[in-house]
């Protein structure tokens, strides 16, 4: 079950001095940064003493940031993965997709903006790129339904994948969803069937499909776009069969044990790599993708381009069979 994001900024607090959102576990770093900012504004410019103190504090805060992010717990990663300032679909497209041409609609019911997709070029190679868009302010979050797709979203994805398949364009998906939308309309239009068919379509393609879990890979809502030849995952993203809160409320009978559930389910990229669920971990800048979005976006673009390169020139039938074999062997 997905965790429904609230309309307000979901986590942490705003540091007014630096205008950055800090997560709760980043409090010591936030305090240091605030102190640095304060010194800077109150200092007589050119005072050597103050300059020295600022430098010392900055070095300390940088080290603290690096140390913290090297040792993030799965629950802390969950918060980073959901960070409101983390790059979203539109940022990745702006960063590494040239000539993006969005395509709309499922041809049956509507256009679900929780999933965006279209033609584009990645490092010169033409692709069909699609993914969940969460939105980044109240208005756009509502418009994109926080990245929680309805059946029509998955049916649009199916349509686009089949289109790509017919014209020989590799498919690139960027996964970032708390889960498929849980609501009456979604159920009455067969959410389960839409997800099942989308997964099935991923598995039928004779073109390569490369998926990247960029934020939250929430359960069925994710797998519908990530049953791919190659699955990349950002270092601090999470990929999970149920949200840690959902798992905790079922198995521990309280959502307060979400941190334990996150740990137990092994939802982090390095652990999923070990289990063979994902194929490659993409490193994030120190302090997470939201601190240096440009660097993170470029790193992802390069990794996707690499993986597309490895699959280029392989026959369609082989692409499909290799993808199948990978999932058949999963967990063996």
């Amino acid at each position, binding site marked *: 079950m997905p965790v429904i994001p609230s309309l307000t900024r979901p986590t942490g607090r705003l540091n007014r001095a630096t205008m950055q959102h800090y997560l709760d576990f980043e409090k010591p770093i936030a305090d240091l940064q605030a102190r640095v900012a304060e010194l800077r504004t109150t200092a007589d410019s050119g005072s050597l003493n103050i300059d020295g103190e600022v430098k010392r504090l900055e070095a300390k805060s940088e080290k603290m940031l690096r140390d913290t992010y090297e040792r993030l717990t799965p629950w802390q990663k969950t918060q980073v993965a959901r960070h409101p300032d983390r790059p979203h679909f539109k940022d990745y497209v702006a960063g590494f997709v040239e000539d993006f041409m969005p395509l709309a609609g499922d041809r049956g019911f509507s256009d679900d903006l929780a999933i965006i997709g279209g033609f584009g070029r990645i490092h010169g190679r033409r692709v069909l790129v699609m993914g969940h868009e969460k939105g980044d302010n109240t208005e756009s979050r509502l418009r994109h339904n926080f990245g929680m797709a309805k059946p029509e979203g998955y049916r649009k994805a199916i349509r686009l994948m089949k289109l790509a398949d017919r014209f020989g364009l590799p498919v690139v998906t960027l996964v970032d969803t708390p889960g498929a939308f849980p609501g009456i309309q979604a*159920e009455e239009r067969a959410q389960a069937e839409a997800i099942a068919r989308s997964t099935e379509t991923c598995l039928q393609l004779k073109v390569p499909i490369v998926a990247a879990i960029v934020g939250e890979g929430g359960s069925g809502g994710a797998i519908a776009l990530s049953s791919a030849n190659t699955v990349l995952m950002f270092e601090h993203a999470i990929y*999970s069969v149920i949200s840690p809160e959902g798992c905790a409320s079922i198995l521990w009978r309280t959502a307060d044990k979400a941190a334990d559930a996150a740990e137990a389910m092994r939802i982090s990229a390095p652990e999923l790599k070990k289990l063979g669920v994902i194929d490659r971990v993409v490193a994030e800048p120190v302090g997470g993708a939201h601190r240096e979005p440009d660097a993170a976006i470029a790193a992802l673009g390069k990794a996707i381009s690499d993986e597309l390169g490895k699959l280029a020139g392989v026959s369609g039938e082989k692409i499909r069979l290799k993808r199948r074999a990978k999932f058949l062997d999963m967990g063996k």
Partner: protein
Amino acid sequence: MNWFNNVRNRIPFISKRSTEDTLWHKCRDCNQMVFTKEYEENLSVCPECGFHGRIGPSARFLQLFDDMSWEELPAPKVKEDPLKFRDQKKYVDRLKAARSATGESDAFVNARGQIKGQDAVIGVQDFAFMGGSMGLAVGETFVRGARAAIEAQCPYIVFTASGGARMQEGGLSLMQMPKMTVAVEELREAGLPYIVVLTDPTSGGVMASYAMLGDIQISEPKALLAFTGRRVIENTIREKLPDNFQSAEYLLEHGMLDMIVERSALRDTLAQLIAFLAPSKQAA
């Protein structure tokens, strides 16, 4: 209650509690108490209200295969407890408890036999085994079932019953969704029917994969069939849901099923479907 006590007292060495449990069945829907024997003879359907009770693999095979005879396919060996998972209990202990309670090694069992003279492989998910949850064992058993059907060139008929993915296997349980879908693809390519019978209850990741990919989608009456559970939806949208929401009847109304078939008519219906769909060498 005198006659009841008399009956109970005539059975030696059984505590009052377990006598009540074994002799009587309480219907989950209408709460009527009926004799277990009468209930089971009625295919575990409540004689009072017609509610279809949950049944496991053996009862299902017994009701469907010719001459009450079938060959159970061996349970595959899979990695056990790949995450070394523990919540308040260890996952391995939950597995042990489920095994001793059901006598099965996991929540899905296949058997090969005949339905009115026509070959079929039937796979049955067992809700009594950890809520029928889908993990490595369920995924691998399903693949073996599909392949047994391909080998025998016969349909694969799957009875679903599950709360969803097995959380104790984390991401690996999620990966069973594409894995089992590959097996469905193999059946399609072999030109063999894949028939799904949804039974009470089926939900979550099971619903969102092989349970909705049947060439023919059947359900037993009044089965609870959902992607997202009712409580989660109510908490999200804070609205009262329609009474028949997520029932088999609701799904039929919304185009998700071909038919609702009562348990007493299932064998005939399946036999007819196989006759229509089986490869031509078998078809009558």
